[in-house]
Protein backbone atom coordinates (compact mmCIF):
# COMPACT_ATOMS: atom_id res chain seq x y z
CA UNK A 1 0.00 0.00 0.00
CA UNK A 2 1.25 3.45 -0.90
CA UNK A 3 1.90 5.64 2.14
CA UNK A 4 2.55 9.38 2.13
CA UNK A 5 5.78 10.82 3.57
CA UNK A 6 3.82 11.92 6.63
CA UNK A 7 2.37 8.43 7.13
CA UNK A 8 5.81 6.85 6.78
CA UNK A 9 7.01 9.20 9.50
CA UNK A 10 4.09 8.15 11.71
CA UNK A 11 5.06 4.49 11.22
CA UNK A 12 8.58 5.36 12.40
CA UNK A 13 7.10 6.82 15.57
CA UNK A 14 7.55 10.51 14.73
CA UNK A 15 4.08 11.36 16.02
CA UNK A 16 4.29 9.16 19.11
CA UNK A 17 3.68 5.52 19.81
CA UNK A 18 -0.14 5.83 20.05
CA UNK A 19 -0.52 7.27 16.55
CA UNK A 20 2.07 4.76 15.29
CA UNK A 21 0.04 1.80 16.64
CA UNK A 22 -3.14 3.20 15.07
CA UNK A 23 -1.46 3.41 11.65
CA UNK A 24 0.17 -0.03 12.05
CA UNK A 25 -3.31 -1.54 12.47
CA UNK A 26 -4.69 0.31 9.44
CA UNK A 27 -1.65 -0.72 7.36
CA UNK A 28 -2.21 -4.38 8.31
CA UNK A 29 -5.84 -4.10 7.17
CA UNK A 30 -4.66 -2.42 3.97
CA UNK A 31 -2.22 -5.30 3.38
CA UNK A 32 -4.92 -7.89 4.04
CA UNK A 33 -7.16 -6.36 1.37
CA UNK A 34 -4.43 -5.28 -1.06
CA UNK A 35 -5.53 -1.67 -0.70
CA UNK A 36 -3.56 0.66 -2.99
CA UNK A 37 -3.67 3.71 -0.74
CA UNK A 38 -5.13 5.40 2.29
CA UNK A 39 -8.05 7.81 1.81
CA UNK A 40 -9.18 10.64 4.12
CA UNK A 41 -12.26 10.16 6.30
CA UNK A 42 -14.41 12.89 7.79
CA UNK A 43 -15.62 11.06 10.92
CA UNK A 44 -15.58 7.75 12.76
CA UNK A 45 -17.67 5.78 15.25
CA UNK A 46 -15.89 3.39 17.62
CA UNK A 47 -18.12 0.61 18.94
CA UNK A 48 -16.40 0.65 22.34
CA UNK A 49 -17.56 -2.31 24.39
CA UNK A 50 -15.97 -1.91 27.81
CA UNK A 51 -14.29 -5.30 27.49
CA UNK A 52 -10.63 -5.97 28.24
CA UNK A 53 -9.39 -6.21 24.64
CA UNK A 54 -11.15 -2.95 23.86
CA UNK A 55 -9.65 -1.27 26.92
CA UNK A 56 -6.17 -2.56 26.04
CA UNK A 57 -6.26 -0.97 22.57
CA UNK A 58 -7.86 2.31 23.69
CA UNK A 59 -5.22 2.67 26.45
CA UNK A 60 -2.40 1.68 24.09
CA UNK A 61 -3.38 4.64 21.90
CA UNK A 62 -4.26 7.07 24.71
CA UNK A 63 -1.13 6.31 26.76
CA UNK A 64 0.90 6.74 23.59
CA UNK A 65 -0.41 10.29 23.24
CA UNK A 66 -2.80 9.71 20.33
CA UNK A 67 -5.74 12.08 19.76
CA UNK A 68 -8.63 11.76 17.33
CA UNK A 69 -8.07 13.95 14.28
CA UNK A 70 -11.65 13.71 13.04
CA UNK A 71 -14.89 13.58 15.09
CA UNK A 72 -15.05 10.09 16.62
CA UNK A 73 -18.09 9.05 18.64
CA UNK A 74 -18.36 6.13 21.07
CA UNK A 75 -20.78 3.27 21.68
CA UNK A 76 -22.53 2.79 25.03
CA UNK A 77 -20.82 1.06 27.94
CA UNK A 78 -22.99 1.68 31.01
CA UNK A 79 -23.95 4.52 33.33
CA UNK A 80 -21.45 3.55 36.03
CA UNK A 81 -22.63 5.85 38.84
CA UNK A 82 -26.28 5.04 38.33
CA UNK A 83 -25.99 1.26 38.16
CA UNK A 84 -23.60 0.90 41.09
CA UNK A 85 -26.00 2.92 43.24
CA UNK A 86 -28.87 0.74 42.02
CA UNK A 87 -27.26 -2.72 42.32
CA UNK A 88 -24.70 -3.91 44.85
CA UNK A 89 -23.92 -7.16 43.03
CA UNK A 90 -22.02 -5.80 40.00
CA UNK A 91 -18.42 -7.04 40.36
CA UNK A 92 -16.14 -4.13 41.39
CA UNK A 93 -13.46 -4.96 38.80
CA UNK A 94 -16.07 -4.53 36.06
CA UNK A 95 -16.64 -0.96 37.24
CA UNK A 96 -12.93 -0.30 37.08
CA UNK A 97 -12.69 -1.61 33.48
CA UNK A 98 -15.64 0.58 32.46
CA UNK A 99 -14.18 3.60 34.24
CA UNK A 100 -10.83 3.12 32.51
CA UNK A 101 -12.56 2.81 29.10
CA UNK A 102 -14.34 6.12 29.74
CA UNK A 103 -11.06 7.79 30.75
CA UNK A 104 -9.13 6.39 27.77
CA UNK A 105 -11.67 7.67 25.23
CA UNK A 106 -11.78 11.04 26.99
CA UNK A 107 -7.98 11.34 26.67
CA UNK A 108 -8.27 10.34 23.01
CA UNK A 109 -10.51 13.35 22.49
CA UNK A 110 -13.48 11.26 21.33
CA UNK A 111 -17.08 12.50 21.34
CA UNK A 112 -18.25 10.70 24.48
CA UNK A 113 -21.69 9.97 23.04
CA UNK A 114 -22.01 6.45 24.54
CA UNK A 115 -24.72 5.92 21.96
CA UNK A 116 -25.18 3.13 19.40
CA UNK A 117 -27.21 5.40 17.09
CA UNK A 118 -24.74 8.33 16.82
CA UNK A 119 -25.77 8.98 13.20
CA UNK A 120 -29.03 10.51 14.49
CA UNK A 121 -27.60 13.23 16.71
CA UNK A 122 -23.97 13.33 17.73
CA UNK A 123 -22.01 12.33 14.60
CA UNK A 124 -24.03 12.55 11.39
CA UNK A 125 -22.43 11.64 8.04
CA UNK A 126 -23.71 13.22 4.85
CA UNK A 127 -24.37 11.59 1.49
CA UNK A 128 -21.12 10.61 -0.21
CA UNK A 129 -18.84 11.14 2.81
CA UNK A 130 -16.14 8.52 3.41
CA UNK A 131 -16.28 7.50 7.07
CA UNK A 132 -15.24 4.65 9.35
CA UNK A 133 -18.25 3.43 11.33
CA UNK A 134 -18.37 0.27 13.42
CA UNK A 135 -21.50 -0.97 15.28
CA UNK A 136 -24.16 -3.25 13.82
CA UNK A 137 -26.90 -0.73 13.02
CA UNK A 138 -24.47 2.08 12.18
CA UNK A 139 -22.57 0.46 9.30
CA UNK A 140 -25.58 -0.46 7.10
CA UNK A 141 -27.54 2.68 8.08
CA UNK A 142 -24.70 4.96 7.07
CA UNK A 143 -24.08 3.11 3.78
CA UNK A 144 -27.68 2.62 2.74
CA UNK A 145 -30.03 5.13 4.37
CA UNK A 146 -27.56 8.04 4.28
CA UNK A 147 -25.44 6.97 1.31
CA UNK A 148 -22.08 7.65 2.95
CA UNK A 149 -19.33 5.06 2.43
CA UNK A 150 -17.95 2.90 5.22
CA UNK A 151 -16.63 -0.61 5.67
CA UNK A 152 -17.83 -2.96 8.38
CA UNK A 153 -15.20 -1.84 10.86
CA UNK A 154 -14.29 -3.25 14.24
CA UNK A 155 -14.29 -0.81 17.17
CA UNK A 156 -10.48 -0.64 17.03
CA UNK A 157 -10.10 -0.12 13.28
CA UNK A 158 -12.69 2.69 13.45
CA UNK A 159 -10.86 4.27 16.40
CA UNK A 160 -7.53 3.96 14.58
CA UNK A 161 -9.07 5.63 11.52
CA UNK A 162 -10.41 8.41 13.75
CA UNK A 163 -6.89 8.97 15.10
CA UNK A 164 -5.17 8.94 11.69
CA UNK A 165 -8.02 10.66 9.85
CA UNK A 166 -7.69 8.08 7.07
CA UNK A 167 -8.63 4.51 6.24
CA UNK A 168 -7.27 2.02 3.71
CA UNK A 169 -9.27 2.14 0.48
CA UNK A 170 -10.87 -1.31 0.34
CA UNK A 171 -14.21 -3.12 0.37
CA UNK A 172 -17.27 -0.88 0.27
CA UNK A 173 -15.18 2.21 -0.44
CA UNK A 174 -14.77 0.83 -3.97
CA UNK A 175 -17.77 1.13 -6.26
CA UNK A 176 -17.50 -2.41 -7.68
CA UNK A 177 -17.88 -3.91 -4.19
CA UNK A 178 -21.19 -2.12 -3.59
CA UNK A 179 -22.92 -4.49 -5.99
CA UNK A 180 -25.97 -6.33 -4.61
CA UNK A 181 -25.87 -10.11 -4.17
CA UNK A 182 -29.29 -11.30 -2.93
CA UNK A 183 -32.89 -10.43 -3.83
CA UNK A 184 -35.74 -10.54 -1.30
CA UNK A 185 -39.31 -10.06 -2.50
CA UNK A 186 -41.15 -8.92 0.61
CA UNK A 187 -44.78 -9.99 0.91
CA UNK A 188 -44.89 -9.86 4.72
CA UNK A 189 -46.94 -7.22 6.54
CA UNK A 190 -44.59 -4.58 7.93
CA UNK A 191 -46.48 -2.38 10.36
CA UNK A 192 -43.78 -1.10 12.70
CA UNK A 193 -40.12 -1.42 13.74
CA UNK A 194 -40.76 -4.79 15.36
CA UNK A 195 -41.72 -6.28 11.99
CA UNK A 196 -38.63 -4.67 10.45
CA UNK A 197 -36.53 -6.23 13.23
CA UNK A 198 -37.81 -9.69 12.37
CA UNK A 199 -37.33 -8.99 8.65
CA UNK A 200 -33.75 -7.85 9.29
CA UNK A 201 -32.96 -10.88 11.39
CA UNK A 202 -34.34 -13.20 8.70
CA UNK A 203 -32.52 -11.45 5.85
CA UNK A 204 -29.20 -11.48 7.74
CA UNK A 205 -29.47 -15.20 8.39
CA UNK A 206 -30.00 -16.00 4.72
CA UNK A 207 -27.40 -13.56 3.37
CA UNK A 208 -24.57 -14.19 5.89
CA UNK A 209 -21.97 -12.03 4.03
CA UNK A 210 -23.58 -10.03 1.23
CA UNK A 211 -25.64 -7.08 0.03
CA UNK A 212 -29.39 -7.70 -0.20
CA UNK A 213 -31.98 -5.87 -2.27
CA UNK A 214 -35.52 -5.73 -0.86
CA UNK A 215 -38.49 -5.12 -3.11
CA UNK A 216 -42.23 -5.00 -2.39
CA UNK A 217 -41.93 -2.47 0.46
CA UNK A 218 -45.08 -0.40 -0.08
CA UNK A 219 -44.30 2.69 1.98
CA UNK A 220 -41.22 4.63 3.08
CA UNK A 221 -39.81 3.02 6.25
CA UNK A 222 -39.50 5.29 9.29
CA UNK A 223 -36.15 6.16 10.89
CA UNK A 224 -36.84 3.59 13.64
CA UNK A 225 -37.79 0.91 11.12
CA UNK A 226 -34.53 1.46 9.24
CA UNK A 227 -32.47 1.43 12.45
CA UNK A 228 -33.93 -1.90 13.52
CA UNK A 229 -33.70 -3.53 10.12
CA UNK A 230 -30.01 -2.54 10.06
CA UNK A 231 -29.20 -3.70 13.59
CA UNK A 232 -30.77 -7.11 13.15
CA UNK A 233 -29.51 -7.94 9.65
CA UNK A 234 -25.99 -7.10 10.80
CA UNK A 235 -26.39 -9.29 13.92
CA UNK A 236 -27.72 -12.53 12.44
CA UNK A 237 -25.47 -11.95 9.43
CA UNK A 238 -22.81 -9.53 8.23
CA UNK A 239 -24.92 -7.13 6.20
CA UNK A 240 -22.94 -3.90 5.79
CA UNK A 241 -25.22 -2.49 3.16
CA UNK A 242 -28.61 -3.10 1.53
CA UNK A 243 -30.87 -1.59 -1.09
CA UNK A 244 -34.56 -0.74 -0.92
CA UNK A 245 -34.90 1.01 -4.29
CA UNK A 246 -36.76 4.34 -3.93
CA UNK A 247 -36.07 4.50 -0.17
CA UNK A 248 -32.30 4.06 0.11
CA UNK A 249 -29.86 6.53 -1.36
CA UNK A 250 -28.00 4.56 -4.01
CA UNK A 251 -29.51 2.70 -6.98
CA UNK A 252 -32.97 3.80 -8.08
CA UNK A 253 -33.71 0.41 -9.62
CA UNK A 254 -33.02 -3.24 -8.98
CA UNK A 255 -30.95 -3.47 -12.12
CA UNK A 256 -28.74 -0.64 -10.93
CA UNK A 257 -28.29 -2.26 -7.51
CA UNK A 258 -27.09 -5.50 -9.14
CA UNK A 259 -24.84 -3.52 -11.51
CA UNK A 260 -26.77 -5.08 -14.40
CA UNK A 261 -26.04 -8.62 -13.17
CA UNK A 262 -28.49 -11.21 -11.81
CA UNK A 263 -29.04 -12.04 -8.11
CA UNK A 264 -26.94 -14.87 -6.71
CA UNK A 265 -29.92 -15.99 -4.66
CA UNK A 266 -33.56 -14.93 -4.32
CA UNK A 267 -36.20 -15.50 -1.67
CA UNK A 268 -39.78 -14.48 -0.90
CA UNK A 269 -40.47 -13.28 2.65
CA UNK A 270 -43.98 -13.73 4.02
CA UNK A 271 -45.56 -13.40 7.47
CA UNK A 272 -44.72 -17.08 8.03
CA UNK A 273 -40.94 -16.49 7.96
CA UNK A 274 -41.24 -13.51 10.33
CA UNK A 275 -43.35 -15.55 12.74
CA UNK A 276 -40.75 -18.32 12.65
CA UNK A 277 -37.95 -15.88 13.49
CA UNK A 278 -39.83 -14.69 16.57
CA UNK A 279 -40.60 -18.23 17.69
CA UNK A 280 -37.00 -19.31 17.16
CA UNK A 281 -35.69 -16.49 19.38
CA UNK A 282 -38.23 -16.86 22.17
CA UNK A 283 -37.40 -19.39 24.90
CA UNK A 284 -40.16 -18.82 27.49
CA UNK A 285 -43.70 -17.60 28.14
CA UNK A 286 -45.81 -16.88 31.22
CA UNK A 287 -44.36 -14.88 34.11
CA UNK A 288 -41.65 -12.34 33.38
CA UNK A 289 -39.16 -10.67 35.75
CA UNK A 290 -38.25 -7.65 33.68
CA UNK A 291 -38.61 -5.82 30.36
CA UNK A 292 -35.56 -4.53 28.48
CA UNK A 293 -36.13 -2.03 25.65
CA UNK A 294 -33.75 0.13 23.66
CA UNK A 295 -31.43 -2.25 21.78
CA UNK A 296 -30.49 -0.38 19.64
CA UNK A 297 -31.02 2.76 21.72
CA UNK A 298 -34.57 4.06 21.57
CA UNK A 299 -35.05 7.32 19.72
CA UNK A 300 -36.92 10.20 21.37
CA UNK A 301 -40.00 9.17 19.36
CA UNK A 302 -39.87 5.66 20.80
CA UNK A 303 -39.35 7.00 24.32
CA UNK A 304 -42.48 9.14 23.79
CA UNK A 305 -44.39 6.03 22.70
CA UNK A 306 -43.37 4.18 25.86
CA UNK A 307 -44.44 7.14 28.01
CA UNK A 308 -47.77 7.26 26.16
CA UNK A 309 -48.42 3.53 26.53
CA UNK A 310 -47.66 3.68 30.27
CA UNK A 311 -50.00 6.65 30.81
CA UNK A 312 -52.39 5.85 33.68
CA UNK A 313 -50.84 2.42 34.17
CA UNK A 314 -48.69 0.89 36.89
CA UNK A 315 -45.95 -1.65 36.21
CA UNK A 316 -46.47 -4.88 38.14
CA UNK A 317 -44.63 -5.03 41.49
CA UNK A 318 -42.53 -8.03 40.56
CA UNK A 319 -41.39 -6.62 37.20
CA UNK A 320 -38.51 -4.24 36.46
CA UNK A 321 -38.90 -2.07 33.36
CA UNK A 322 -35.86 -0.65 31.57
CA UNK A 323 -35.57 1.61 28.55
CA UNK A 324 -32.09 2.42 27.17
CA UNK A 325 -31.57 5.57 25.13
CA UNK A 326 -28.90 8.12 24.19
CA UNK A 327 -27.85 10.96 26.48
CA UNK A 328 -29.25 13.42 23.93
CA UNK A 329 -32.68 11.77 23.84
CA UNK A 330 -32.63 11.42 27.65
CA UNK A 331 -31.97 15.13 28.09
CA UNK A 332 -34.94 15.98 25.88
CA UNK A 333 -37.12 13.32 27.55
CA UNK A 334 -36.31 14.87 30.93
CA UNK A 335 -37.14 18.32 29.60
CA UNK A 336 -40.37 17.28 27.88
CA UNK A 337 -41.54 15.08 30.77
CA UNK A 338 -41.37 11.58 29.22
CA UNK A 339 -38.81 10.47 31.83
CA UNK A 340 -41.07 11.35 34.76
CA UNK A 341 -44.06 9.71 33.04
CA UNK A 342 -42.08 6.47 32.71
CA UNK A 343 -40.80 6.71 36.30
CA UNK A 344 -44.31 7.45 37.61
CA UNK A 345 -45.46 4.13 36.16
CA UNK A 346 -42.52 2.37 37.82
CA UNK A 347 -40.07 2.21 34.90
CA UNK A 348 -36.53 3.50 34.33
CA UNK A 349 -35.15 5.48 31.40
CA UNK A 350 -31.37 5.22 31.32
CA UNK A 351 -28.69 6.78 29.06
CA UNK A 352 -25.19 5.64 28.01
CA UNK A 353 -25.99 1.96 28.63
CA UNK A 354 -25.93 -1.18 26.48
CA UNK A 355 -27.88 -4.37 27.22
CA UNK A 356 -24.66 -6.38 26.84
CA UNK A 357 -22.82 -5.02 29.89
CA UNK A 358 -22.00 -6.35 33.38
CA UNK A 359 -24.44 -3.88 35.00
CA UNK A 360 -27.25 -6.37 34.34
CA UNK A 361 -25.78 -9.09 36.59
CA UNK A 362 -28.92 -9.01 38.79
CA UNK A 363 -30.94 -10.54 35.93
CA UNK A 364 -28.58 -13.41 35.10
CA UNK A 365 -31.05 -16.11 36.15
CA UNK A 366 -34.23 -14.20 35.22
CA UNK A 367 -36.86 -14.18 32.50
CA UNK A 368 -36.74 -11.01 30.43
CA UNK A 369 -38.98 -9.65 27.69
CA UNK A 370 -37.73 -7.50 24.85
CA UNK A 371 -38.84 -6.17 21.47
CA UNK A 372 -35.30 -6.68 20.11
CA UNK A 373 -34.04 -9.85 18.44
CA UNK A 374 -30.50 -8.51 18.94
CA UNK A 375 -31.08 -8.18 22.68
CA UNK A 376 -32.50 -11.74 22.74
CA UNK A 377 -29.41 -12.99 20.86
CA UNK A 378 -26.79 -11.29 23.08
CA UNK A 379 -28.85 -11.43 26.28
CA UNK A 380 -27.23 -11.48 29.71
CA UNK A 381 -30.26 -13.18 31.24
CA UNK A 382 -31.62 -16.71 31.19
CA UNK A 383 -34.94 -16.94 29.35
CA UNK A 384 -36.41 -14.51 26.87
CA UNK A 385 -39.83 -13.52 25.54
CA UNK A 386 -39.84 -11.53 22.30
CA UNK A 387 -42.75 -9.25 21.40
CA UNK A 388 -43.63 -5.84 20.04
CA UNK A 389 -43.55 -2.76 22.30
CA UNK A 390 -47.29 -2.78 23.17
CA UNK A 391 -47.03 -6.43 24.23
CA UNK A 392 -43.95 -5.67 26.35
CA UNK A 393 -45.81 -2.87 28.14
CA UNK A 394 -48.93 -5.00 28.69
CA UNK A 395 -46.84 -7.89 30.01
CA UNK A 396 -44.99 -5.52 32.36
CA UNK A 397 -48.33 -4.30 33.77
CA UNK A 398 -49.80 -7.81 34.13
CA UNK A 399 -46.57 -9.47 35.24
CA UNK A 400 -46.85 -12.12 32.56
CA UNK A 401 -46.93 -12.70 28.84
CA UNK A 402 -49.44 -14.89 27.04
Amino acid at each position, binding site marked *: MYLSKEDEGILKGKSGIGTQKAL*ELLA*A*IGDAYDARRMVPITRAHAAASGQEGDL*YFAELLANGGARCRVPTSTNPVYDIGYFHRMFSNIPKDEASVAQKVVEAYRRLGAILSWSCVPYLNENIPLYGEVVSFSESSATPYVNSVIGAHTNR*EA*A*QSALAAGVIGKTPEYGLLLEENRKATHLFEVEATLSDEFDYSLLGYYVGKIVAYGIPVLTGIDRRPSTEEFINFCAMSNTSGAVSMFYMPEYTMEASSMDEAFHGDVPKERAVVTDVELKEVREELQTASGEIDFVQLGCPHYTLKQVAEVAGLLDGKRIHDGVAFWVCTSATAKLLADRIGYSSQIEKAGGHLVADTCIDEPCWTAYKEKVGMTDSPKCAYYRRFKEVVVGRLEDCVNAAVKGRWG
Partner: protein
Amino acid sequence: MKEMSVSLRCHKIIGGYGEGAALVSQEPICFYLTDPKTGIVREKTHELFGKTISNRVLVFPSGKASSVVQIDGLFKLVKNGLAPKAMIVKDVETVLVVTAFIAQVPLVNRLERDPLEAISTGDLVKVDANKGTVTITKNT
Protein backbone atom coordinates in the same frame (compact mmCIF):
# COMPACT_ATOMS: atom_id res chain seq x y z
CA MET B 1 14.24 -41.91 7.82
CA LYS B 2 15.19 -38.41 6.76
CA GLU B 3 12.96 -35.61 7.98
CA MET B 4 11.04 -34.01 5.13
CA SER B 5 10.76 -30.23 5.27
CA VAL B 6 9.13 -27.94 2.75
CA SER B 7 9.25 -24.17 2.71
CA LEU B 8 6.39 -22.19 1.16
CA ARG B 9 5.89 -18.49 0.46
CA CYS B 10 3.06 -16.65 2.19
CA HIS B 11 1.71 -13.11 2.61
CA LYS B 12 2.23 -11.30 5.90
CA ILE B 13 -0.72 -9.61 7.58
CA ILE B 14 0.52 -9.40 11.17
CA GLY B 15 4.29 -9.76 11.52
CA GLY B 16 6.33 -11.90 13.89
CA TYR B 17 7.58 -15.45 14.23
CA GLY B 18 5.89 -18.48 15.74
CA GLU B 19 6.43 -22.22 15.62
CA GLY B 20 4.65 -25.24 16.99
CA ALA B 21 2.56 -28.27 16.18
CA ALA B 22 -0.13 -27.54 13.61
CA LEU B 23 -3.82 -27.77 14.42
CA VAL B 24 -5.88 -27.77 11.23
CA SER B 25 -9.56 -26.87 11.09
CA GLN B 26 -11.66 -27.02 7.93
CA GLU B 27 -14.24 -24.84 9.71
CA PRO B 28 -14.02 -21.11 10.63
CA ILE B 29 -13.01 -20.37 14.23
CA CYS B 30 -14.51 -18.12 16.92
CA PHE B 31 -12.04 -17.54 19.79
CA TYR B 32 -14.85 -16.57 22.15
CA LEU B 33 -16.00 -20.20 21.98
CA THR B 34 -12.77 -21.52 23.49
CA ASP B 35 -12.22 -21.91 27.24
CA PRO B 36 -10.07 -18.92 28.34
CA LYS B 37 -8.46 -21.04 31.08
CA THR B 38 -7.40 -23.96 28.86
CA GLY B 39 -7.68 -22.91 25.22
CA ILE B 40 -9.96 -25.88 24.58
CA VAL B 41 -12.64 -25.42 21.91
CA ARG B 42 -16.01 -25.70 23.65
CA GLU B 43 -18.28 -25.19 20.63
CA LYS B 44 -20.04 -28.57 20.60
CA THR B 45 -20.70 -28.75 16.89
CA HIS B 46 -17.13 -27.72 15.90
CA GLU B 47 -14.69 -30.25 14.46
CA LEU B 48 -12.06 -29.05 16.98
CA PHE B 49 -14.42 -29.57 19.95
CA GLY B 50 -12.39 -30.73 22.96
CA LYS B 51 -9.00 -29.83 21.39
CA THR B 52 -6.79 -26.99 22.58
CA ILE B 53 -5.60 -24.24 20.25
CA SER B 54 -2.96 -23.11 22.79
CA ASN B 55 0.62 -22.94 21.56
CA ARG B 56 -0.41 -24.48 18.24
CA VAL B 57 0.07 -23.08 14.78
CA LEU B 58 -3.57 -22.72 13.92
CA VAL B 59 -4.54 -23.39 10.29
CA PHE B 60 -8.13 -22.50 9.36
CA PRO B 61 -10.17 -21.01 6.52
CA SER B 62 -11.32 -17.77 8.25
CA GLY B 63 -12.62 -16.20 11.42
CA LYS B 64 -16.27 -15.83 12.33
CA ALA B 65 -18.47 -13.74 14.68
CA SER B 66 -18.41 -10.07 15.70
CA SER B 67 -15.34 -8.00 16.54
CA VAL B 68 -16.36 -7.64 20.19
CA VAL B 69 -16.49 -11.37 20.92
CA GLN B 70 -13.61 -12.34 18.64
CA ILE B 71 -11.19 -9.84 20.21
CA ASP B 72 -12.35 -10.58 23.74
CA GLY B 73 -11.89 -14.31 23.12
CA LEU B 74 -8.30 -14.20 21.80
CA PHE B 75 -7.25 -11.42 24.21
CA LYS B 76 -8.24 -13.56 27.21
CA LEU B 77 -6.16 -16.47 25.84
CA VAL B 78 -3.16 -14.14 25.41
CA LYS B 79 -3.48 -12.86 28.97
CA ASN B 80 -3.48 -16.44 30.24
CA GLY B 81 -0.50 -17.37 28.05
CA LEU B 82 -2.66 -19.72 26.00
CA ALA B 83 -2.78 -18.10 22.57
CA PRO B 84 -1.84 -19.92 19.35
CA LYS B 85 1.81 -19.38 18.26
CA ALA B 86 0.79 -18.26 14.77
CA MET B 87 -2.21 -18.36 12.44
CA ILE B 88 -2.41 -19.37 8.78
CA VAL B 89 -5.71 -18.59 7.02
CA LYS B 90 -7.21 -18.69 3.54
CA ASP B 91 -9.54 -15.69 3.81
CA VAL B 92 -9.10 -12.71 6.00
CA GLU B 93 -11.47 -9.92 7.04
CA THR B 94 -11.15 -6.77 9.15
CA VAL B 95 -12.19 -8.42 12.41
CA LEU B 96 -9.53 -11.14 12.19
CA VAL B 97 -6.82 -8.60 11.35
CA VAL B 98 -7.77 -6.46 14.35
CA THR B 99 -7.97 -9.52 16.60
CA ALA B 100 -4.51 -10.80 15.62
CA PHE B 101 -3.05 -7.29 15.84
CA ILE B 102 -4.26 -6.77 19.40
CA ALA B 103 -3.20 -10.28 20.45
CA GLN B 104 0.14 -9.88 18.62
CA VAL B 105 -0.17 -13.31 17.07
CA PRO B 106 1.53 -13.60 13.64
CA LEU B 107 -1.09 -13.94 10.90
CA VAL B 108 -0.44 -14.91 7.27
CA ASN B 109 -2.53 -15.81 4.22
CA ARG B 110 -2.02 -16.65 0.54
CA LEU B 111 0.19 -19.65 1.12
CA GLU B 112 1.57 -20.97 -2.19
CA ARG B 113 -0.50 -24.11 -1.66
CA ASP B 114 -3.90 -24.57 0.00
CA PRO B 115 -2.87 -24.59 3.69
CA LEU B 116 -5.76 -26.89 4.59
CA GLU B 117 -4.26 -29.53 2.26
CA ALA B 118 -0.54 -28.82 2.58
CA ILE B 119 -0.57 -28.96 6.38
CA SER B 120 -1.86 -31.76 8.62
CA THR B 121 -2.57 -31.62 12.34
CA GLY B 122 0.62 -32.57 14.19
CA ASP B 123 3.09 -31.30 11.55
CA LEU B 124 5.81 -29.02 12.92
CA VAL B 125 5.20 -25.61 11.35
CA LYS B 126 7.42 -22.52 11.50
CA VAL B 127 5.78 -19.25 10.48
CA ASP B 128 8.10 -16.35 9.74
CA ALA B 129 5.57 -13.67 8.82
CA ASN B 130 8.20 -10.95 8.35
CA LYS B 131 10.10 -13.03 5.78
CA GLY B 132 6.86 -14.37 4.31
CA THR B 133 7.74 -18.05 4.73
CA VAL B 134 6.05 -21.08 6.24
CA THR B 135 8.19 -24.19 6.84
CA ILE B 136 6.38 -27.49 7.25
CA THR B 137 8.01 -30.62 8.67
CA LYS B 138 5.72 -33.60 8.21
CA ASN B 139 4.96 -35.62 11.30
CA THR B 140 5.72 -39.13 10.07
